[in-house]
């Protein structure tokens, strides 16, 4: 891995302004994709902004009757959520068919999408 500096953001606004200050930075959530790529030097960020403290780890009902899934909800928690299992079974099934138990315990929703 190329050397990098590291900071832990305390709020979404703090994370966004840190990223604006450092165009050479990447956000890190579970790290299961980014660190893999950094070890191969496919990704070479000079700075990492840890987003794990942002509190975006909730699954909340929306007024329209849907669910809002936080960026930091882990794959395991999303797949195991009782509402997702009951009403969005295909999402549970898709998550459970990917990677491994260990990886799903770290992998986040945003990391998976981005």
């Amino acid at each position, binding site marked *: *891995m*190329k*050397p*990098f*500096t*590291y900071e*832990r953001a305390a709020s979404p606004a703090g994370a966004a302004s840190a990223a604006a200050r450092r165009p050479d930075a990447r956000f*890190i959530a*579970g*790290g*299961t994709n980014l*660190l*893999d790529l950094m*070890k*191969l*030097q496919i990704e070479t960020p000079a700075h*990492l902004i*840890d987003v*794990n403290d942002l509190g975006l780890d909730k699954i909340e009902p929306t007024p329209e009757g849907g669910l809002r899934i936080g960026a930091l909800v882990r794959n*395991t928690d999303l*797949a*195991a959520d*009782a509402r997702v*299992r*009951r009403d969005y*079974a295909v999402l*549970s*099934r898709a998550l*459970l*068919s990917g*990677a*491994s*138990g*260990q*990886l799903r*315990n*770290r992998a986040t929703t945003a990391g998976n999408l981005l």
Partner: protein
Amino acid sequence: MATPRENDVKRRTLMAATVATATVGTIASRAGAQASPASPPAPGSGAAPTLKVSFTVNGKPRDLELDPRTTLLDALREGLHLGGTKKGCDHGQCGACTVILDGRRINSCLTLAVMHQGGRITTIEGLGTPDKLHPMQAAFVKHDGYQCGYCTPGQICSAVAVLEEIEAGIPSHVTADLNAKPALDDAELRERMSGNICRCGAYSNIVEAIGEVAGRKA
């Protein structure tokens, strides 16, 4: 002249003494050392300043000062000399590096040590001791759940967490009814253990060992 074995013992004693006298263990990152030729270790030049991190490993508070690149796996093995946790692929594919972090099994090779300030980590050394084996360790011995043993610490940490995941009702890819409590059958155990590769192919004995701990008939 010392035999190779005596030399090894002395080297280990010396290493232990070195760790004991240091208030904070500083380890140079070996990041990249085992990766592809495209990522040689970057000695000294341009390395980022070290960072302090404190977490609990097997119930003991530990303070480290690390190159930010240090994975949790390298911090455990090289910073804290807990060699039970193994490095297989270093890319999240084999499970040899599995540890339990804040109650959940993870691949310690794909996370940075500095991300775990205040975390609680359990490694194979924290599950049981040679005199007082964890029931899962005892079952692996009884059922010959290994040959070379390289994957075993990861298998055992994973297996302990798997039974907790089933108990907590977390479904798996082979769970037929997502809304019912998952079964404890071989198919469930095999699927849930699929992140732990065994080069020696001890799989069927591993499943027997886990099944016994889970309370199934041996």
